[in-house]
């Protein structure tokens, strides 16, 4: 428990030593390119883990591997004791892993409420026959889903927009809705892919507060990919740095900021490109 002592969050309530997700030598290869190479990640219950790295480091690819959108070429992904590498995305989702996307992927023509409801009834609680004849069990289940969806919207402060089309919401609210939808599947592990992308400083601050509260209230394990360093450093007691598909460093924000390899990965690249520019 003391390994997350530097974090600003209420560690005692949420973090435990119980490992919820573990990748072992996780690798994926696209043709000749090793997009992810022997990555070992460990997420414990109640963790709020940061995943950072320069563009093309393989962060989103790791999310795609964990959620089943990609099949690993090597290595294992263990989620709560089960090997999930290569399983179908919907099966993995129902096991308790949910995510948001770098480029928002809501259901734009559906209402805000319906978007969240999908998270609740991806596997309907009644048969197709009951749906066709609208038998009592279907009516009851639909009502229950709507009630729960409303609760999820209230928690993120989107209740007043429940009737609006998701695609008509402003950008920041769409991001929030995506998180609400992911939460509706009642996941054990939430993967957020650049949730603060495109936000200004002020919006980032309120987003940090929002995410911290969500994390404290639910005790959920969260993995966060983010380019806003202040968001990651502020929120995450433990950070993994990826570069060129490999784990470069792991540690608390202070260690990461001082790590010479990390600094080189971020700044060294820039110097190289500058020199390439000179030559041209």
């Amino acid at each position: 428990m003391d390994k997350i002592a530097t974090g600003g969050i209420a560690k005692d309530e949420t973090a435990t030593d119980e490992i919820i997700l573990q990748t072992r030598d996780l690798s994926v290869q696209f043709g000749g390119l090793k997009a992810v190479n022997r990555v070992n990640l460990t997420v414990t219950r109640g963790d709020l883990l940061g995943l950072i790295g320069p563009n093309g480091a393989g962060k989103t690819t790791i999310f795609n591997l964990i959620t089943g959108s990609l099949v690993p070429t090597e290595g294992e992904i263990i989620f709560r004791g089960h090997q999930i590498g290569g399983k179908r995305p919907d099966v993995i989702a129902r096991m308790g892993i949910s995510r948001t996307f770098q480029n928002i992927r809501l259901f734009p023509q559906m209402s805000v409420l319906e978007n969240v409801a999908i998270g609740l009834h991806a596997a309907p609680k009644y048969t197709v026959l009951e749906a066709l004849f609208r038998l009592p069990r279907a009516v009851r289940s639909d009502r229950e889903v709507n009630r729960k969806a409303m609760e999820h919207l209230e928690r993120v402060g989107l209740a007043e927009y429940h009737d609006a089309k998701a695609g008509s919401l402003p950008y920041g609210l769409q991001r929030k809705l995506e998180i609400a939808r992911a939460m509706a599947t009642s996941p054990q592990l939430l993967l957020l892919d650049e949730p603060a992308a495109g936000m200004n400083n002020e919006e980032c601050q309120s987003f940090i507060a929002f995410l911290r509260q969500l994390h404290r209230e639910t005790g959920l394990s969260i993995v966060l990919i983010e380019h806003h360093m202040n968001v990651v450093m502020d929120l995450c007691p433990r950070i993994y740095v990826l570069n060129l598909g490999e784990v470069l460093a792991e540690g608390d924000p202070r260690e990461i900021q001082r790590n010479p390899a990390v600094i080189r990965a971020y700044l060294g690249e820039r110097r190289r490109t500058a020199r390439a520019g000179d030559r041209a």
Partner: protein
Amino acid sequence: MGYLNSIFILGGINVLAVVGVAVLTGYTGLFTIGHAAFMAIGGYTAAVLVVKLNQPFWLGLVAAGFAAALSSLIVGYPTLRSKLKGDYFAIAMLGFGEAVRLLLNNTYKVINGAIGFTGIPLYTTSLLVLALDIVGIWLIRNFVISQYGKNCVAIREQEVAAELMGIDVMKTKLWALAISAFYAGVAGGLFGFYMTYLVPSMFTSSKSSDLLAAVVFGGINSLTGPVLAAFLLVALPELLRFLYVWRLVIYGLLFVIIMIFRPQGLLGYRDISWASLKRFAGRLGGGGRRSGPGLKSPPPARVAASGGGR
């Protein structure tokens, strides 16, 4: 009277087939140019059961639906498992439709192949068609507002996200396909017992594209739109009959105009319900008074962008 009755019956049969396609294309976003094959399968199944095996007519219709639904799994399982969508799925369905038609065309035992299956009694009445239309539309409406229906829409809107929310995409699509095939099958059964004979050339791909056209014309994500369109598309050529050769030109022109000015279809993303009729009446009476929050109306640009279902 007989002429109007015939338009009503053929229109009603078309409505039944089209609401099925509405589930598959309008809600789930899978385009099909092969549903005439399910009508054919349904039509021949009912005819064989009733005429050759002396079963009651109602049993023939039920069997027509199930035979079509089962055969839809034969084409649906391999195509949807390999995640065919968009044009590719449509082409697979086109192939299936032609294969079924050619099979029937060359089966001379029992069904008489290209010569045609004759001697089917006239059992389909306007009252029966009306009753089946009402029940059929009611069932489909229940389906699309159910959790299954919402899952279908989610798949059309954003398949990647739908799958990552935990929706079994293949199973949901198979259900949509099977239901649409069931409807086409029953419609085919009614059709055979109205025409009193069946020839495979009744079920060409142009019949399939008529069904698809009614859904696209009527509107994506809508039931009332396709129902109206299905009926109109049968009645319209008859109404335009006085124009002789120009009839089909105007028919085609109408399509082009609709697709230019309302690419989402006449009633795309909306349905006529009591509430919406009341709102409409209120707006007429109240001088354009808006009801509900301003956010309710869809941004037109997005409608066009995501309407394709690809």
